[in-house]
């Protein structure tokens, strides 16, 4: 009898919690299935770790999967806005997906926190993109770090191999500009597909140009194949990777053949080597431990990007609550303004300093130079 009553109260609670007052609703759209699933799964798994209580307001998260399909992202966003009347949206996982939903979020006046790679969602800033905040490091920030390392180690020519998707395209553009400023020449630019079973031809083309170093720009584990191919073709020079390769699986798949790789990424890969004075260390460590306890494995950086979105909201919600009730346009507009005012807020990926012009807000505390040494990520001091 007691049990029955308990079940009844839990069910009633679940039914009525949706209608509870003074509650902030946040939609989370991730690609936990489909080709971008490796990005979306840690994002989805991070949702239960995000703050559920801010001041005297409760925060309810409504996770949806878009199957990596940009059209499905738009449907999900529209559903969250019109049916759930959400106050903010976190997602979607993929760059093309995010580009497609910006106008709908802007029209409805809902802040969108996009954990995507491409800077195009916040740059150049305009009337629509002012509703978007990006919780990943801009490619520019990472590229500058890599180019800095190249210049310091005397590298003059670089070969580039990137994926033929927005990630690789943007990297080709950003990196070529950044390298040009330091007098480093990009002598070969090659593309490959995530699903390719061989990049032998691209590797040969790059090696023919005899570069001092090679940069590989691919999101996730596809970054491994070109590097292994180059190694098998006898290339023993320096290989650089982007933050897209910053995953534990990169080491597992690459093994001995990715030894010596240099990349720049958030501190999450080398937490134990970061000095305790870094403002992000404790937050990132707590997040990683909580994630591991819940899911049994360490999170990829992508999960941290979504978790940070939760922290940004937590920081902004009290300011917005002073100006309006959750669920109203006034609250959402105030929430956007508050997000834009974020100052010196440490999170798992670095320290956020938003301005009207910069909706990503990272500085050099958001990236570390990391090398693969003895099969482990090692901080370059």
């Amino acid at each position, binding site marked *: 009898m007691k049990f029955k009553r308990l079940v009844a109260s839990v069910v009633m609670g679940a039914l009525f919690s949706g209608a509870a007052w003074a509650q902030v609703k946040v939609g989370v759209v991730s690609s936990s299935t489909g*080709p971008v699933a490796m990005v979306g799964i840690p994002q989805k798994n991070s949702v239960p770790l995000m703050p559920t209580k801010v001041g005297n307001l409760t925060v309810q998260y409504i996770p949806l999967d878009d199957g990596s399909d940009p059209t499905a992202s738009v449907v999900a966003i529209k559903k969250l806005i019109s049916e759930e009347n959400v106050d903010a949206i976190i997602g979607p996982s993929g760059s093309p997906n995010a580009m497609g939903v910006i106008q709908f979020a802007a029209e409805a006046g809902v802040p969108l926190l996009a954990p995507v790679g491409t800077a195009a969602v916040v740059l150049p800033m305009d009337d629509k993109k002012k509703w978007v905040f990006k919780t990943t490091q801009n490619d520019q920030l990472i590229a500058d770090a890599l180019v800095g390392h190249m210049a310091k180690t005397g590298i003059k020519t670089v070969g580039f191999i990137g994926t*033929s998707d927005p990630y690789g395209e943007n990297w080709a553009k950003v990196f070529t500009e950044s390298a040009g400023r330091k007098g480093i020449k990009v002598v070969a630019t090659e*593309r490959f*597909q995530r*699903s390719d*079973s061989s990049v032998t*031809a691209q590797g040969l*083309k790059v090696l023919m140009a005899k570069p001092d170093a090679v940069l590989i720009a691919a999101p996730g584990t596809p970054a*491994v194949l070109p590097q292994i191919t180059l190694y098998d073709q006898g290339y023993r020079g320096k290989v650089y990777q982007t933050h897209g390769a910053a995953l534990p699986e990169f080491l597992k798949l690459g093994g001995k053949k990715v030894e010596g790789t240099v990349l720049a990424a958030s501190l999450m890969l080398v937490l134990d080597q970061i000095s305790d004075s870094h403002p992000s260390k404790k937050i990132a460590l707590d997040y990683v431990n909580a994630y591991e306890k819940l899911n049994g494995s360490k999170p990829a950086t992508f999960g941290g990007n979504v978790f940070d979105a939760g922290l940004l909201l937590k920081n902004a919600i009290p300011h917005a609550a002073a100006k309006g009730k959750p669920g109203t346009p006034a609250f959402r507009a105030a929430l956007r303004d508050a997000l834009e005012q974020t100052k010196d807020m440490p999170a798992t990926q670095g320290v956020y300093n938003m301005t009207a012009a910069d909706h990503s807000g990272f500085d050099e505390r958001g990236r570390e130079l990391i090398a693969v040494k003895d099969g482990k990520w090692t901080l370059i001091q």
Partner: protein
Amino acid sequence: MEFPIALMLVQDGITNGAIYALLALALVLVFAVTRVIFIPQGEFVAYGALTLAMLQAGTVPTTLWLLVGLGVAVTAVDGVPALRAGRPGRLLGVAGWNLAYPLGLAALLSILPLQSLPQLAQVALALAIVVPMGPQMYRLVYQPIASAPILILLIVSVAAHLTMVGMGLLFFGAEGQRTPAFSDAVLDLGPLMVPGQTLVIVAVSLTLIVALFQFFERTLYGKALRATAMNRVGARLMGISPSLAGKLTFFLAAFIGALSGVLIAPITTVYYDTGFLIALKGFVAAIIGGLGSYPLAALGALLVGQLESFSSFWASAYKEVIVFTLIIPVLLWRSLNSRHVEEEE
């Protein structure tokens, strides 16, 4: 272009082409016998490769539970009518293949020290898990609609493909896997260094093609399949069971698919959804052969492999566009040069 580089590109094209050839043969075979355009062919590639990777990681592959689940379903579908008809012998046969075999395999896998087994044994186990799904799939998905029009079979194939990709994500996760090479040896031919894995792929593909040829030319079952492919009604009148022909075909298709997966796993990173694109290129090759000719399909596969390799060299950003655009002139040429045979419905 320098000569050694051209040679390396040719070699790369042959390696990929050999895999496409195997898949093209399987697609032609399935279409000829059952009129099914077998889109899930690629999923067997991914299942084979990733099941092997799981075995090598020392875990019991999750695909095993799919095998058990399909087995239970087939037993229910086939066993109940056999029981009603009072044929306990048949029931025993059905249950033996579909219940006892997967459960026995599960028991075997839980006992064996998977990680330390020789590589060939691991491959055999991976095939033993994945290949029986072919005939099971035919029984559950295609046999009930065996006489439906080609279009319906195609739509069902798309559904089966999407289901298998979804289950693949569930079984293997989103991250890709690689397996160690079968051979680290490198054959030094002057300017050309041929990795052992390439030799293994080409050798296995050739062996399999010859074996298939022998099977179709010399064995009773092979001849039965050929007869069904030529004339379904006639073959049935001669006492060839269409459902047996279907299951046998799907067994071969699943075997070829899983073996291709095992072969490419050491040279590339295989994801749960990698198979589709590989099989699609096999399909382009099969189209070059008009979905009817085995030698033309194999030649087409080599052509696709070379085209892919050289277009990656010259214009890597447009590689897929170039490979898939090839299908247009081929279709044009075929529709102008061959007389139309309308499928009898």
